[in-house]
């Protein structure tokens, strides 16, 4: 069946491509009209072509529970999510501001702790923080930067406002899919790129390498940069291999590296040992160095922390950066921006109730049915309570969890996540989406053009995580020559 946009409605939600009156938003017009001109058969062909491209290109992700069959094709929808360039530029500025403040915060809490002394941030939060690393106290990494790669999740509410939902500062993943989604789209719908001003995404690899090179302890033209992966069974292994290839770095596992007597890091090459300058590590702090953290870890490198503390190797992200990747700390980011930068936050936080505060906790416990409750340190959508969809039994369980460990829980209103048209069987239907842009901070700050749009493929679902049945879309930042609202057709 061909697409009839006049039949498309996203009742009660903000839709990214179609406005409340059913009119196509200006940046989406060329795309939507193109799609409407296709027959049902042609649409099905496009869909198949995209699936084939994904298989041929070997774009996969890994699911833990499937035993030996660990590679799955990446679920992808061919209808892109579109954002106007002007809106994006403002968003970019907001993300840059945010990551700068976050880095200043991390540097501060591991050193002078001015923000605590000035009573802007409660010091007792650090004592209970699962990601605060005592081993990092007093240390300043190169450039004073801790979170070099940040993936922030943005969501749009009913009224069209983009909120920051969380900042992933440990080992955020997804950027490879952002890049690969674009290459799939260019293969499948090349004509749309000719007739639209869609900003390119592909300088990410160059930016990533330059950022990594900027934290090298040795001033070389081509420092030895490696990507450290936990290995083939990790859910993001595809991305690790992809990024290593894109930036021309060696993809290494813990057993490939060793720390020498000179406290420098080396990799075992067939020619002998070769010094490593920068490690883009994709394993968690806890597994990084069995001498310092988890002694059982076979993924890490004994002595790595020592080498890093002596400044002999760059680690991105720096150990301990996760202290700011905590849903309680998140609530303080707007204050951090005001405190460190003396600026007003450009991007708002989602209103957040902290269960550590008595009054807010009472409110949360009285309104569990309306709220989303999240533990401070989980990612991937695990361990959450979605109030409106919960059972009485689940709410009771969460009330107990909150009582036992109030510091570990926050609650937020259930957002009416925006939707975007998605090809479902033989028609388009609205599906909920979020957006994860990636921010790089080295000497300067870089934000990807757009981000990874994740889509909840199940009707009505709000869960976009690929580990839980989500898919993704290409994200277009479209430049329009006209003033907004001007209708030239």
């Amino acid at each position, binding site marked *: 069946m061909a697409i009839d946009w006049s039949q498309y409605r996203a009742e009660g939600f903000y839709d990214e491509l179609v406005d409340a009156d059913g009119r196509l938003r200006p940046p989406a017009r060329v795309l939507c009209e193109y799609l409407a001109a296709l027959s049902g058969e042609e649409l099905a062909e496009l869909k198949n072509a995209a699936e084939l491209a994904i298989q041929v290109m*070997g774009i996969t992700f890994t699911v833990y529970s499937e035993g030996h069959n660990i590679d799955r094709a990446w679920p992808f929808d061919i209808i892109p999510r579109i954002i106007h360039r002007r809106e994006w530029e403002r968003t970019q500025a907001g993300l840059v501001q945010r990551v700068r403040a976050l880095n200043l915060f991390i540097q501060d809490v591991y050193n002078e702790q001015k923000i605590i002394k000035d009573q802007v941030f409660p010091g007792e939060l650090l004592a209970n923080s699962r990601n605060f690393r005592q081993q990092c106290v007093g240390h300043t990494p190169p450039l004073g930067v801790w979170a070099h790669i940040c993936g922030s999740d943005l969501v749009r509410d009913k009224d069209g406002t983009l909120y920051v939902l969380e900042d992933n500062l440990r080992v955020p993943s997804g950027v490879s899919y952002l890049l690969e989604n674009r290459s799939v789209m260019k293969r499948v719908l090349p004509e749309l790129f000719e007739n639209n001003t869609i900003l390119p995404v592909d300088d990410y690899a160059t930016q990533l390498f330059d950022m990594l090179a900027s934290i090298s302890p040795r001033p070389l033209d081509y420092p030895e940069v490696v990507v450290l992966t936990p*290995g*083939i069974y990790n859910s993001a292994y595809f991305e690790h*291999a992809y990024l*290593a*290839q894109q930036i021309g770095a*060696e*993809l*290494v*596992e813990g*057993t*490939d590296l060793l720390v020498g007597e000179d406290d420098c890091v080396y*990799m*075992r*090459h*067939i*020619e*002998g040992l070769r010094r490593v300058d920068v490690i883009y590590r994709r394993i968690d702090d806890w597994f990084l160095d069995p001498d310092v953290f988890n002694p059982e870890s076979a993924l890490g490198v004994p002595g790595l922390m020592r080498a890093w503390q002596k400044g002999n190797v760059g680690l991105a992200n720096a150990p301990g950066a996760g202290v700011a990747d905590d849903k309680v700390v998140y609530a303080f980011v707007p204050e951090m921006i005001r405190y460190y930068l003396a600026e007003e936050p450009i991007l708002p936080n989602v209103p957040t109730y902290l269960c550590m505060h008595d009054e807010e906790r009472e409110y949360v416990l009285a309104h569990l049915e309306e709220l989303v409750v999240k533990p401070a340190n989980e990612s991937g959508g695990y361990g959450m309570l979605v109030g409106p969809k919960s059972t009485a039994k689940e709410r009771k369980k969460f009330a107990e969890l909150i009582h036992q460990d109030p510091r570990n829980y926050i609650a937020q209103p259930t957002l009416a996540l925006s939707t975007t048209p998605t090809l479902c069987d033989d028609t388009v239907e609205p599906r909920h989406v979020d957006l994860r842009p990636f921010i790089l901070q080295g000497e300067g700050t870089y934000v990807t053009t757009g981000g990874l749009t994740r889509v909840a493929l199940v009707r009505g679902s709000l869960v976009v995580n690929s580990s839980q049945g989500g898919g993704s879309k290409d994200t277009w930042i479209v430049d329009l020559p006209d003033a907004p609202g001007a209708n030239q057709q």
Partner: protein
Amino acid sequence: MLSRVANNIYWTSRYLERAENTARIVNVHGNMLLDLPSRLGVGWEPLLAITGSGELFYRHFRNADERNVVRFLLTDTRNPGSILMALASARENLRTTRDIIPRESWEAVNDCHRFARERAESITKRNRYEFTKNIMRVIQQICGFLDGAMSRDLAYSFVRLGRYLERADMTSRVLDVRAANLLPPVDRGDEASQDPLANTQWMSVLKSVTAYQMYRQHMRFRVTGPDVLKFLLQNREFPRAFLFCMDQLEGVLQELPQPEAALRRVARLQRRVQSADVHALAERGLHEFIDELQIGLGELHGDIDALYFRGTPAPAGD
């Protein structure tokens, strides 16, 4: 190149060579038995000896009959050297080196493994030939992809190191088991070589390493024990002859960094094989001689491991 990656590629290449060789000896042995009267009592045990898996076999089976031995060598998951398990190991190793090995060969290994797994339960005496032929064909195809699509860089060097070391190992094992049983303790002269049954068995020794046709072209007369030994040990043109494999290893090692220790080992093996008196060996001492070669190959592997793999753990399977 990372030591772990080199190690992976080396073992992948060995596993593929091993799977192909195993398919071939099962095939040839079955054919030979059809021509031999059962009173000779050759049976299937020699295959266990060639693959060095007798001990493991008897842990799981009582009788070395056709059904058990064939199953054990082709598809038994308890035998890490079975074709199915060798392919599984090759596949696991390639998974992490997919960006280095040409895509087609990864897909072919994947496919070959799937084929072996699907057929595992349904191999009969009748369709066994088709199974082994298909395994050999696909592995040859994989080698073709590797030879045709890989740059002649370090990765390719490790493909060849694994291939020729495993191949030399197999040729020497075939000679050891087969020929040692065949060679009479005292020279029976023409009488032995005219014995049609002995002839059949010598031919199968050649066929076990696809050498029959090339032997005929090269030697131009009937198949005799010393000539087979000479051909399979000392020939420098036939790709499964021991000396040929050593020459290849010498060439590959020269492309690698600091190969001196390993090169010395290869040179010693080359000298030992070249100077062997095949007529004397045909009479006595073949087993001891091959033992020496086997030890040399084991040490060569140890050298390669120490020089290039640097304590990275051996990958899947072995």
